[in-house]
């Protein structure tokens, strides 16, 4: 989750999110450089004492400010396409989970081996134990093993939703009647929060997503416990 007044991204929990972070740094630096240069030129033009400002012919600068932006665009496009294709890599998942969006909760189905299905409702503010995060906690978390490729099939039972967890670098629209696939590998254990990212009615802001990544042994213990309860 974000800490108070956080401006940048949350720390990455998957390799893909890490790549996205670095690409963002790269692109933002280029943006800062261009903006600084433009701002400097504006200030220089407004405060100049020169009177002869209208040059009518300037082949060299015209070539420069055509070629340089083209080069900058290539320098942005290359890492961008690299990350894009990285996200689409065939990853041979170890586990497939279905995340179904409802109004206004998520339900998760782990049906690879057993038939484990449960709903995940937001914990209402008055029911929070002291220290829990308002509007982010749920009664059941989606538990996944670390260092394992996980495939998530996202869909919806009623209206559009979107399953998003920023630390994992994942956002996938939940469309009724459609199966959307996304995947991630949790590279570190932890609890990762996200929120529904497609307007879906009155409680759209109140159906969060909590993913808990644990080592495989603990994941097996958790599934056994959930099968007993459900």
């Amino acid at each position, binding site marked *: *989750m974000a*800490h108070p007044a*956080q401006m940048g991204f*949350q*720390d*990455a929990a998957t390799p893909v999110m890490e790549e996205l972070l670095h690409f963002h740094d790269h692109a933002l630096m280029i943006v800062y450089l261009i903006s600084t240069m433009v701002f400097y030129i504006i200030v220089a033009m407004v405060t100049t004492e*020169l*009177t*002869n*400002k*209208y040059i009518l012919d300037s082949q060299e600068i015209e070539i420069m400010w055509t070629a340089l932006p083209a080069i900058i665009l290539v320098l942005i496009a290359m890492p961008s396409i690299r990350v894009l294709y990285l996200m689409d890599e065939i990853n041979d998942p170890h586990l497939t989970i279905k995340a179904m969006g409802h109004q206004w909760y998520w339900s998760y189905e782990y049906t690879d081996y057993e038939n484990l299905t449960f709903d995940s409702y937001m914990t209402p*503010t008055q029911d*929070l134990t*002291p*220290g*829990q*995060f*308002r509007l982010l906690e749920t009664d059941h978390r989606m538990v996944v093993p670390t260092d394992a490729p996980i495939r998530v099939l996202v869909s919806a039972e009623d209206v559009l939703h979107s399953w998003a967890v920023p630390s994992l670098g994942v956002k996938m629209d939940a469309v009724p009647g459609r199966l959307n696939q996304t995947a991630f590998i949790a590279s*570190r254990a*932890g*609890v990762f929060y996200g929120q529904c990212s497609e307007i879906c009615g009155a409680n759209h802001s109140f159906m969060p997503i909590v993913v808990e990544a644990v080592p495989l042994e603990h994941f097996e213990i958790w599934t056994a416990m959930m099968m007993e309860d459900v």
Partner: protein
Amino acid sequence: MLATRALRLVGKRALSTSICLRGGHGVAKVEDYTLPAYFDRRENPLPDIKFVQQLSPEQKSLKEKEKGSWAVLSKEEKIALYRISFKESFAEMEKGTGEWKSVVAGIFFFIGFTGLVVLWQRKYVYGDVPHTFDPEYKQKELQRMLDMRINPVEGFSAKWDYENNAWKK
């Protein structure tokens, strides 16, 4: 009838179809598709036409005097000739209006007024914030975030020294 009489005036050059002739004196050739106009602009120091187009009798005699030696012209006469050609001197042109002071004053006023509106809203319109904003609750939240190692790489928990139980220096 009227048309032929008008057209004959054109032939006599009493009526001109080109603005450049009517000026009488000091009209530059205009490059773009506009009528020659007077303007005070620093980057275009020489306007298309002189400022004063209809000369008074004194100005006309001054213009005649200008055709002679300039050394005999007095300072006031030189200034008068300048003022025939130009409306503002460079110094007057560059001076600025001080309008920015009114603009900044207006900005501050409206920011202040907005602040008053916000204060009024907070007192009379909005209810209480949720109990999760209480300082003790926030303290527990903070501790829980550290215990859960939220953002441990470069973010939140990375800045906490777990050995000494304090923020890293």
